[in-house]
Each structure stands twice: as C-alpha cells, then as structure tokens.
C-alpha cells in the first residue's frame, strides 16, 4: 500500500512539475508580470482559516490585542452580503513605531482572508473601514502587525441571518 501511495505521489509531482514549467514558459520569463497575480492569489484563496493564517503569518505568535484594538462589527448581520467592519488601533503612528498592516479575517468564509491594509505613518491613525461579505455566523478577527513585527489579534462573533458569500 505504501509503495503504491508513493508511486502515486511521484506521478502527481511530475505532472505538477510539467505544468509549472509550461506556466513559466508561457509567461515568457517576465518576472514582474507573473509576480503581481501570484501575490493577489496568495491572499484570497479557498482554504480553512487555520491554513490561511499559517500561510500568511507562518505560525508567528499573536498576542491578545483586546486592550489595543477596537474592532467594530455588528452583533447580528441581517444581510451577510454587506457587513460593515471598522478597525481602530490605539497605537502611535510615528516613523519609528507604527502599525504596518491590518488584516481582516472571517473565520467561516471560504476565502477567510478578507483584506490586508498596509499603512504608512502619514495615515496619522491606524484605522480602516470596509464592507465585507460573511458566508455564515462565525468569528471575525482583526490582526494587527506593528512595524517591529509584533502581531496582535482580536475576535468578535457576528451572527449572520442570510449568508452573503454564495461561493
């Protein structure tokens, strides 16, 4: 059984390798062109939230950001297609120490990583707002990355009456 499994994996690998080579050939070696779509794809993939978080953050420890982050979401979202989310971080925005990025993650969505906002110190305040989709009732997280690499996380549950993801 084990031999068979390994043989199967090998052929699959070969197939993937060939496909990859074709892809590179098709892109005619333009690195900058291929980099941009790959970047967009890495963020919004169909995956579980654990897989998404470990892919983006690589298992780095996250501190509880309850005192630092204000995550503004409705308790009950009647329409999952439009759910207003606002994240405000109570942290200084100076060139030495600022909030580098804010991630919004919807645990139960098929595409869990909703958005990543990269901020510069000129923003004056670490704040972002957006309307997002929620497929079903579940946690919404805000993950904040500071310029020194520290990660903070906060979660809130949102009850969804009518799901808005479809996909």
């Amino acid at each position, binding site marked *: 059984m084990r031999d068979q499994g390994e043989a199967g994996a090998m052929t699959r690998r070969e197939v993937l390798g060939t496909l990859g080579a074709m892809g590179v050939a098709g892109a005619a070696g333009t690195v900058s062109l291929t980099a941009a*779509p790959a*970047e*967009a794809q890495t*963020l*919004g993939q*169909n995956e579980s939230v654990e897989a998404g978080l470990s892919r983006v953050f690589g298992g780095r420890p996250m501190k509880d950001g309850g005192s630092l982050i204000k995550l503004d979401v409705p308790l009950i979202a009647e329409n999952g*297609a*439009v*759910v*207003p989310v*606002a994240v405000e971080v109570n942290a200084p925005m100076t060139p030495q120490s600022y909030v580098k990025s804010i991630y919004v993650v*919807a645990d139960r*969505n*098929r*595409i*869990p*990583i*909703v*958005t*990543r*906002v*990269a*901020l*510069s110190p*000129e*923003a*004056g*305040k670490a*704040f*972002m*707002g*957006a*309307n*997002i*989709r929620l497929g079903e009732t579940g946690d919404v997280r805000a993950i904040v990355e500071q310029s020194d690499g520290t990660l903070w996380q906060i979660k809130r549950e949102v009850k969804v009456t009518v799901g*808005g*993801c*479809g*996909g």
Partner: protein
Amino acid sequence: MSDIGKVRLRLPSSIKAGDVVQVRCLIIHPMERIERDKAGKIIDKKYNYINKVVVTYLGKTISTFDTTQSVSENPYFAFTLKATDPGPVTVTFHDTLGGKYEGTAQITFG
C-alpha cells in the same frame, strides 16, 4: 453594469491643518464571487473583482488595501490621513481584469 468604476469620495466638511481626517470612498463594482457548478466544483474562470486599492496624498502612498472576493459588492472603504497641506487625495482601484478606476478629492483648509 454601465456604472462600473464610478468612484465617490467623501471628506469631512471642515478640515484644519494637522487634523487626522477620515476619508470614505465608495466604488460601483460587481466584485464577482466564486461560482460553483451543480456538483459543487468551482468554475474556473477569471473572476472580476478589485484586488488592490491605493490611497495617495501629496504624492505619497498613505495606505494600500489588498482585497479579496470576501469584500462586498460596490465596496466601501474608509481610511485616515494626516492633513498637513492642501492637496488632492487620490484613490485608485485595480481589478483583476486590468481595470483601473480613480477618484480624487481636494483637501482644503477653512
């Protein structure tokens, strides 16, 4: 959708120099969600959704939103910036089909 790419930007009505102002913007865009066939398999096609929003003010990039299909149709975004000098705020939206839509508002003091 003939309105696709229509951008609206809203600034606070009065801004003083040095204020941290909140800017809200809205764009008309379908933000196509993933479609599945009857067997539940994802239909493989190029979905048209906004994957990048760039905010610039006085020639500097203030913030960049990398967005996915989990963002609502006709998305709304809000962000802040420190109003140091009068000048334009430009928000540029890029979608996966190469569309580029722009909205500008002027920051004036008074």
